[in-house]
Every structure is written in C-alpha cells, then in structure tokens.
C-alpha cells in the first residue's frame, strides 16, 4: 500500500521555482487499479517518479507498506525498485543494445538470477504477452505496440507487487492502445497487483477502478 502524506514537489527552471505538486495526500491500496488523470504538466509523472523512488518530495513523505521510501539508502531503494515495482514508460525505454529477450531479462540479471534462468523467464514473459516471435529483435526493429509489450513483459517478469505506467499509450495508435488496455486489464484481473497509470487520456483512465485528478482536473 502506498501512502503519500502532504507531498509537495517543485522544479527549478531558470532560477524560478515551479510548484508542481502541492500538499498531496493520497492512499493507494494493494491490488487497486488507479489512474492519475490530468493534463500535461499537471504533475502526474512527478507523482509516479516519487512512487518509483526517483524523485524525493520537497515536503511530505512517500510510504510503501509503511516504510518511507526516501528514508531508505540508495542500495535499499534500488532493491525496492527491482523487487517491488515494474515500470512502463511512454517512450518504452528499452535498451537499444539489447534484443527484446535480453531487455526483459535485465531486472532478473540485476537481481543476480543466472543468465540461462533469466532468459528462460524472459521468454515466458514475452510469450505471455504475445511477442515471443520478436524475442531476438532489437528495439529498433519492433513496432511501437511491440515495444510497449516488451516493456510490459520486462515490468512483469520479476512478479512485482506494483506496476507503474507513465502515459503508456502516448506513443501508440488507437488499435494498439485498445490492445494494451485490454492487456493491462487481464494482468490486473489475473495477478491482482497494484497498478498506477498516469494519463491524460479519459479512455485510458476509464479502464481503471479508481481515478485521481492531479492538477485540479476532475
């Protein structure tokens, strides 16, 4: 369970401080499918980055299962990212030097899983998302939809408790978006993991069981 208590976040641009999130308090229960909804620049990604442990809040605390994420040291926070969360980004963020299956195996390799075992798990993950036939292709050889599926396979290969997705359909066409939402819905139904999607798209947000407006949106 996530608890954001009185969280604020600010960026400094050209010596000016921009308050992106101001005193946000939010609870995300285990197994909940939440959509953070808001226009561009409203701070959805900022919230997601704070949940992922990349961005310490300027005020307030971010707790995961009762522990303040930013009170952890760097190694513990890295382990939290590796073991507890999976992340999907709008730009997929696949490593261009690796083929699809190696990209998916990376979180397991970081965890210290032997390479052969990690590759087998990665193949299974790709198979479950219907892109096993593209396992040995580089990201540049995959379509946007395929890249997003590979990114999802990578996010799920470790069996995380939480899936964070930042505008995951931003670079997909309508058909791929529908396919992706269908996939996320199936994952949620099957695994009952906590899913948090940041989106500005009402149709994407509609797939979630809970909607949280960020930046004053309904």
């Amino acid at each position: 369970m996530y608890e954001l208590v009185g969280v604020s976040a600010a960026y400094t641009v050209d010596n000016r401080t921009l308050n992106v999130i101001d005193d946000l308090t939010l609870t995300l229960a285990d197994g909940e499918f939440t959509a953070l909804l808001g226009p561009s620049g409203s701070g959805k990604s900022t919230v997601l980055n704070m949940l992922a442990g990349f961005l310490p809040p300027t005020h307030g605390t971010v707790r995961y299962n009762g522990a303040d994420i930013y009170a952890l040291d760097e190694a513990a926070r890295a382990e939290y990212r590796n073991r507890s969360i999976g992340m999907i980004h709008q730009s997929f963020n696949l490593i261009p030097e690796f083929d699809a299956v190696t990209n998916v195996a990376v979180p397991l390799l970081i965890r210290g899983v032997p390479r052969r075992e990690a590759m087998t798990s990665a193949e299974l993950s790709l198979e479950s998302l219907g892109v096993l036939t593209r396992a040995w292709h580089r990201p540049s050889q995959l379509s946007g939809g395929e890249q997003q599926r590979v990114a999802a396979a990578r996010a799920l290969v470790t069996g995380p408790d939480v899936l964070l997705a930042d505008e995951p359909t931003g670079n997909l066409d309508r058909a791929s978006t529908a396919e992706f939402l269908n996939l996320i819905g199936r994952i949620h139904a099957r695994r009952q993991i906590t899913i948090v999607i940041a989106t500005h798209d009402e149709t994407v947000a509609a797939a979630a069981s809970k909607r949280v407006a960020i930046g004053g949106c309904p």
Partner: protein
Amino acid sequence: MSALVLFILRSHRARAFETARQVVVLAVVLGLTLYMAALWPALRLANTAPADAATWDVWINGPLTEEILSEIEQLAGSDTRAVAINGAPTAAVGIDGTMRPNSRDVWYFSTDNIEALDDTPWSGAFRKSGRIVSTGQCGLDMATARDLHADIGDTITFQVDIPLPDGTVERVSQTAEVAALYETTRYPSGILAELRPDVAALLAESLGEGVVASDVYLTNPGGEGALLSRIGDALAERPVSILTRSVYVADSYRAADASVDSGYMTALIVAGLLVYFVWTLREQYIRFGSRQRSIAILHSLGLPLPPVTRALATEQALIGVFSAAPGLVLANWMVRRALGYGVQAEIALPIVAGLCAVVLATVVVTAWQSARALGRLPVAELLARD
C-alpha cells in the same frame, strides 16, 4: 554475467569501430610519446656530438708503428679512451680502452651498408654463422648488426681469411660474443668481438713491417682538451695527419646546453602525455553521454549506481592497457628502426613508468568523474525523454 557487464560489452560491440578507433588513436599517441622520449636524447647527441667530438677527440691517421702508439699511450695517460684501427677506413684491427698496441680486438664498421666490406682489403675475410646466416657477410657496426638481428650478447662465428705478405691466405675460424664498443662519440657505434691471440698476431703480421694500425681515435672527457692538444702537437713531426684537434669549451656552456635540451625533451613528453590524458577523458566523456540514458534505464530497473562507477573505471583501465601495450610495441618497433639507421634510441624505464602513471591517472579521474556524474544523473528526465 551481470546486466551491467553485458550492457558494456554489447555497447562496445555495437560501436566496435568507434572503440577500435579510440584504442588505435590512444596507442599511436602513447607510441609516439614513448618514441619521442626515446629518440630525443639520441637526437640531442647527434646534434651536439660533433661539437663534443671537436672538443675532445683526435683522429690520428697514417701508418702507425708500435713506437708511435707507445708514444701516444704515454702522452694520453690511463684515463684516455682510445681505439686504434688498421687497414682501410672500413675494416680494422682495433684497440679498445687504454692503448694496447697488441690488441686482440677486431672491429668492422661502416656507415653505409654491409656491401661496403666488398670494397675493402678485407673483402671476404668475414663470414658469419650461427644466428647470422642470411647474407654471407658480417657487419658489426650497430646499424648493420641490427639489420642482421645480432644483439649484444649474441654469439657469432667469424671465418677469417687472412692474406699474408707472402701471398698466401690463412683461414681462421673464431667464435665470439658480441659486445658494445662505443657509446657516445661522433663515430658510428660498433659492436666488438674479441679474437684469439693467434688470429690477432696473423692480422698484425699482414699489415706490413712494423705497422700495427692505420688510425687512432682518442677521447678524454675529463681532459678539458689540453692533453689531447698536446698529443696533437707532439705528433706534428710524425708522418701522420691529425685530423681533429681539441678545442676547449667550458663545462658551464655544455651543462647549460644540456639543460636546455632536457627542458625541450620534458616539454615534448609532457605534451604527449597531456594529449593522451585529455583525449582519453574526452572519449570517456562522450561515451558516458551516449550511455547515460541506458544507465538511467538500468538504474530504474534496480541497478545501484556504485557498481556502475566501478565498471566504468575498470573499462577505462582495460582501454588504457589495450592502448598502452600496442603503444609500447609500436614505440619499440620505431626505436629499433631508428637503431637500424644508426640512431641509438632507447626506451627508458622511468618514461614507461611515467606513462603507466598517466594511464592510472585516467582511471582514477574516470572513476571520480563517473561517480560525480552518476550522483547527478537526472533519471526521471532521461526516462521521460522520447
């Protein structure tokens, strides 16, 4: 294999040409620096040696009998280095060290090539065997020896056909270990092989009645020129020509000249090392820039950053080794080529140690720079980038 190592290896495979180019450039820079460091003292010697020689050396040319040599020996004293040769300018029986008229040394030198031996009265007198088997002739000046892959310490065998005054030829075989003869004079450095007394006696006999040498070279670094001038004056009435007289040059002038040269040499070497250092860090900076998004992705997947710093430093160390080793080989090859042209260049150990220190410094700076850059890695920003 960890994800990080796999990533670094794959990134090099993807940019194999770039990596190879970096290593080649660094190797060439290091090689040239080493070569420069080795060559400079030799060039300095080449530039200043004629002046030094004019200052300190005397070349006495003419039929030299034992009587004349004894006179020279008495005038020269024990601290004078002398070499006496006989026959034509290119083939000689010599004396190394203080004057020893009954020398047992054989010395051949030629500034041109081994074929020059054919033009001498000793044509056909020297044959080689053992390691030196390619041309049927043997030259023992430094350049020729290098061409023949004969190093100091090698054992060579001469087969000497000695023409005697009665027209007969005495053939004698002799095996000898090659040793250095000269170090710093204007005359070509030679390699010395020692003959048996019976061979030396036969050679002396072949010179003609009473003549034991045709030329004598004298050098006396501590003599300040006066002693050698006196020898020249003493021999003025003899049937020999004094081709070089000593001229006094103050020690202070020579020391100042040497220090200016050493300043140039240091500046050149420092410049070479600086180029290597800056180029290395520039390449490392570019490499890091092209990888930082991938590193951010790995970090977002749970990779802690300290191992990244260690991996990048290790990578830099390997690049250092893979560029330094060929650099050393390249420099060594060029130095040997220089030796082939009679330039006595040598790669000094302190210079190699200095280069190792610079390679190590690039590793340390890389580690420090990487740790700093990774500490400020804008992970969220990099992950949001399209």
